[in-house]
């Protein structure tokens, strides 16, 4: 065919071109007809089954470490069983899961119901957690029998040492419904998520939880992953590690070695210069892991009704009568208000003190003889303090106590109690303006009556005596470190109040707390380790009822350049000097790495005399 020879050929070409174009488009349209009309049902089913799931990859929760980096809480893999919310009601899946794995059908349905009510039906429903190895392999082998159910590995919180530092670390649990409802945005909580419930787990929740990632996977009708869009994957950002100020060795030793068996109580050890909490013990504790896997009602009931109340945080939330340890505060009040001077002796202590028709007993029935303030403090003579109580008055006592941070929160990041420092307004309020007499001061001045302090508050007072009068904010979180090891935040020591003690009071208290341990009549001999010198104050707080007294010991060490201060209280255990002081000694020995056999006082007396530390304070 040549261009010159025919119009016909040209016309034929044009027509052929039209025909080809129409034919090709018709072919494509026929293909559309085939796919969209003839095979529509097939593809519609495929589309329905085409479950491209965006699976969440839960970020590993940050690790809790002690001040030296030792991990105290980490994560282990746990298998959880999920089902599609839509398959819950098909009447076959749940019963077979209940039969083969013991899934709680009612609970699963309730959960799905809640999800639906909150328009979250498209999220999978967790029906079982913490599957055993046997259960996992059983599921995997018979996967086809459970269409719509699948396993997911998630990190479970592991409290490596079980009941260690229970009331510091806290536990995690399934996030509360309320929190799910109130959280929005990319980090929103979903039903079944884990969140910190108490302690540092709750305090540092935002740091610990990290950022969840996502995977784009296609799953078949039985929930098995077929395919993942790897380039779409958004890996999770692990939570930040939280370094606590806790010294693991110390806390562990207090809880497991030093503590008398079957006794409740608390101990707090602070760094006197920074306010860092080196140990915060509340005995007894409980195994945090039980909460992490979801505690059963029965188990919880056992904990709740335990007479030693392990659920109760004693080191910061419990208000105790401070007993004679309160004489630290009383002495400061007496000196600052010029009620007594250091060397002024008072009439002899006969073992009791009469106000009107009421007799206040000294803890030493035969009496102490005539003492000055130092002697009264050293031997913890109640009568010495009784004698000055009314001159001081309840309000001036309360003012000094408040000055020292009692009766109010310390600024500690975890839950704590105010304690109670009564003043005349308090009595007016509770007993009525005419319902009380100034005699209340007689009881309060020795830390009885209405006075309540928390161990943490008292430890802070000891630290203030040791560091020259600065009331520190107790610190529990040392720093936060992200997964790449970069420090995000390192909290600086915070002083709550400076110069809370006058020079005279400070001088006296340091001298007095030394004397309690090293003085020949001191009540705290048992706190003296083989080397180094501890300062302290014993306390034996009477408790309502005929039960045994609470044994207190407040201390700091070493005496010349103090580094740690602390408190030990053992409930219903007897004398502070006999029960609490030895624990304090072991704490000091542990912290400073000393050998410690106990009973060192009489051995070391000559040495103490040579150093000129022992002073005669009895007339």
């Amino acid at each position, binding site marked *: *065919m*040549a*261009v*010159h020879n025919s119009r016909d*050929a040209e016309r034929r*070409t*044009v027509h*052929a*071109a*039209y025909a080809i*174009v*129409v034919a*090709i*488009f018709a*072919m*494509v*349209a026929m*293909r*559309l*007809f085939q*796919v*969209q*009309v003839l*095979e*529509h049902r*097939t*593809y*519609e089913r*495929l*589309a329905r089954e*085409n479950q*491209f*799931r*965006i699976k969440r990859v839960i970020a590993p929760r940050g690790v809790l470490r002690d001040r030296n980096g030792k991990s105290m809480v980490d994560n282990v893999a746990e298998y959880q069983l999920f089902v599609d919310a839509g398959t819950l009601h098909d009447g076959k899946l749940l019963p077979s899961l209940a039969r083969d794995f013991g899934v709680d059908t009612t609970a699963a349905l309730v959960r799905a119901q809640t999800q639906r009510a909150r328009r979250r039906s*498209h*999220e999978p429903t967790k029906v079982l957690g913490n599957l055993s190895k046997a259960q996992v392999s059983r599921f995997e082998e018979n996967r086809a029998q459970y269409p719509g159910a699948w396993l997911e590995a998630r990190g479970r919180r592991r409290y490596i040492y079980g009941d260690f530092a229970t009331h510091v670390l806290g536990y995690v649990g399934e996030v509360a419904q309320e929190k799910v409802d109130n959280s929005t945005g990319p980090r929103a909580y979903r039903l079944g998520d884990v969140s910190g419930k108490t302690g540092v787990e709750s305090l540092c929740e935002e740091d610990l939880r990290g950022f969840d990632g996502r995977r*784009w996977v*296609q799953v078949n009708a039985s929930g098995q992953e*077929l*395919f993942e*869009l790897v380039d*779409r994957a958004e890996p999770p950002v692990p939570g930040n590690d939280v370094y606590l100020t806790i010294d693991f060795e110390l806390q562990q030793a207090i809880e497991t070695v030093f503590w008398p068996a079957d006794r409740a109580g608390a101990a707090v050890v602070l760094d006197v210069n920074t306010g860092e909490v080196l140990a915060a013990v509340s005995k007894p504790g409980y195994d945090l892991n039980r909460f992490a896997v979801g505690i059963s009602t029965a188990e919880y009931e056992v904990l709740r009704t335990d007479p030693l109340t392990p659920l109760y945080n004693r080191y910061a939330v419990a208000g105790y009568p401070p007993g004679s340890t309160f004489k630290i505060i009383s002495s400061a009040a007496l000196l600052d208000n010029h009620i007594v001077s250091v060397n002024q002796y008072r009439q002899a202590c006969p073992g009791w003190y009469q106000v009107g028709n009421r007799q206040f007993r000294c803890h030493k029935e035969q009496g102490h003889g005539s003492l000055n303030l130092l002697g009264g403090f050293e031997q913890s003579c109640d009568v010495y303090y009784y004698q000055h109580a009314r001159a001081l008055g309840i309000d001036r006592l309360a003012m000094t106590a408040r000055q020292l941070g009692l009766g109010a929160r310390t600024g500690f990041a975890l839950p704590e109690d105010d304690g109670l420092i009564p003043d005349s307004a308090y009595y007016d309020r509770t007993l009525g303006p005419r319902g009380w007499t100034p005699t209340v001061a007689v009881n309060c001045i020795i830390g009885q009556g209405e006075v309540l302090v928390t161990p943490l508050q008292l430890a802070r007072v000891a630290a203030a005596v040791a560091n020259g009068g600065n009331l520190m904010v107790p610190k529990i979180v040392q720093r936060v470190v992200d997964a790449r090891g970069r420090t995000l935040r390192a909290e600086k020591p915070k002083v709550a109040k400076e110069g809370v003690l006058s020079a005279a009071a400070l001088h006296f208290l340091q001298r007095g707390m030394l004397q309690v341990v090293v003085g020949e009549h001191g009540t705290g001999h048992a706190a003296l380790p083989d080397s180094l010198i501890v300062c302290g104050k014993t306390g034996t707080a009477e408790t309502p009822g005929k039960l045994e007294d609470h044994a207190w010991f407040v201390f700091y060490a070493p005496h010349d350049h103090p580094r740690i201060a602390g408190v030990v209280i053992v409930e219903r255990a007897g004398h502070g000097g006999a029960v609490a002081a030895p624990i304090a000694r072991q704490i000091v020995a542990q912290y400073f790495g000393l050998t410690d056999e106990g009973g060192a006082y009489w051995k070391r007396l000559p040495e103490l005399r040579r150093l000129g530390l022992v002073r005669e304070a009895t007339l």
Partner: protein
Amino acid sequence: MSVGDGVLGTRRFVESVDRLALAAILALLAISLVTLYSVTHAPVEGDWNRTLLVGPGIFYRQFVWIALGLGALYLGFWTPYRLLEASAWLQYGLSFIMLGVVLFIGRGTDVERWIHIGPIQFQPSEFAKVALIFVLARYMSTRTGDGNRLSSLLVPGLIVLPPVVLILKQPDLGTALVFFAILIPMLFWRGLRLGHILLLGSPGIGFLMHLYLRTEQHMWWPWLVFVLVVFGMMLWQRAYLWENVSIFVANLGIHFLEPWLWSHLRPYQQQRILSFFNPELDHLGQGYHVAQSKIAVGAGGFLGQGFLEGTQKELAFLPARHTDFIFSVIGEEFGMVGGVVILCLFALIVLRGIAFAARARNGFVRYAAFGIAAYLMFHVTQNVGMTVGLIPVAGIPLPLVSYGGSSMLVTLFLLGVLLNLGSRWREY
């Protein structure tokens, strides 16, 4: 444009433009916006499992591209075709240089196709397609003779070869095929018989058969049968003896050339080809995308799921649901009806283009209009064919509908030229 054309030539444009074709173009642009709106907007706010991967910014940016594209269309309309004809070889040379440049300085992950000038990036291959149309049109309009002689095919073949070689080096098999999709219809328009095209294409068909047989354990007797059929056709077409001999030799050569060529394909190209012939081989890669696209289209049914109601578009499988695979979204939401409407609109433009070419008196106009129609035809059928599993995946967007600037500007410019050619058919 001259006095009397109205402001910026609008009056002349409105009076002389082919309204049918223009209406089809505008309708397709509107469909593009509607579909992109659907792709970028979730029906259920905050539904976590139905996250859209394409942000709404795409939708708004497409407005800008369309506005610029309409400018390009207008520019194309007002570009004197004689200027295009005169500068054809210059365009061809420039595009050749750019294709060379992109091989050396082009950036990219593993394939280099783009040239970046500041914030602007474009594919020289797009420009090369345009230049090819005009060069071929110019060459064919100045030569006469029997379009069926192999010698008359030689020069067009030589014109196509350099850009194709450069593009294959990038490597971009899909785009290289576009050049043949322009060349062959233009040869046909020049008078090459369909039977001859089949014979000419027989080595290519033999090549494809070899590729297919790779998935069948290299069982090659079907190819032998095919070669015998070709031989039979040649006996019927005896007039062209020496052409027939060459083609027959080429057919046999394929058998030895194919393994060599295959070893020079990039792994992803091999994968694409294999997965097209046998989707089972590649459940997770290219074949997977096609399978998913078919599911979306098939799920649409006759009337579609409805605007914004498609579910497959939200899922992650469609890698380019706003660009190359936009037709599957249309298929799902508007069904076969929507798909056929789009095909009809494109067919309308193509047929109008052929009509322009047929009635033109000027040789360049004849061939250029037909070349542009072929260009559009190939892009549309390749893209739609790919989404419904008729043709292997090649990274070609659906003209006028897919999101993206490069393709939008080039296509609308060419359509502007086409409208101009259509309005000037009387000129010699």
